[in-house]
């Protein structure tokens, strides 16, 4: 079997160029809230490492640094 062009991608690669071109506009989620300096940050709730619900608004009245990271 002959494999040519962009289809000859390494199996580990996520997608072909063709697929990228065919894909919809990046960030098709239309209700993105822009994070703008000077604007309030909308409230959200996420579970802590021990499963306790934590809200951004729990920190009202304090200066807060939010640090986003990942284990990878």
């Amino acid at each position, binding site marked *: 079997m002959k494999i040519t062009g962009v289809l000859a991608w390494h199996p580990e690669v996520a997608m072909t160029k063709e697929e990228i071109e065919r894909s919809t506009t990046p960030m098709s*989620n239309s*209700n993105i809230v822009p994070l703008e300096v000077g604007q309030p*940050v909308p409230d*959200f709730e996420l579970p*802590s490492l021990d499963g306790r619900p934590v809200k*951004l608004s729990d920190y009202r009245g304090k*200066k807060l640094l939010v640090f986003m990271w990942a*284990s990878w």
Partner: protein
Amino acid sequence: MCRYQLPGWQEFYAAHQNDNFELLSIAVDAPGAKVAKPWHDKAHATFTTVVDQTNLLAGAFGFKVVPNGLMIDANGILRFKQIGGFSIDKAETRQQVESLIREKFGDQNPAPLEALQPPSAAGESWQQHFQTAVRLIEQGQHKEAAAALRRALLRDPTNFLVRKQLWRALHPEKFGEQIDLDWQQQQRQREAELGFEAANPV
């Protein structure tokens, strides 16, 4: 890599605890608390870490990378943001955050915060596929999770948060207790050579 910053932030947090300052750490790990907790514990962190397993915030705010930093004042107003490359190890970052801690943040007159809206159900956003993937990862169905992540990536090809989880689903052995950074570097190179580069892999 961002998890290596946790001890640095712990030291920073301890130094500023009496400055009306708090630190909230958010791990964006699809497998959940079990992969984030070892890094929090290893840093002896006393600040709170929460887990954003489904990338709720990335979807809502439109970012595609970590590490990120947001500085929010006592009234809930965003005063500083850095998306990608945010690091305690950079003197400039430390100074910026410290100067905001010292600054008087205006009146203590908090207006109620609006709640973040859940992602739209209309259309297929990358987030919906990502959520499916998280469910499949929890069920140990890594192959099916990879397919869902691939669909997520098709919706947002430069999203590095999605891509890393796809690598993890395809190669769980590279993301064990030790994270194989050399392999990640090679993987990025392989993809870059094929004309497929992430937005801002940090």
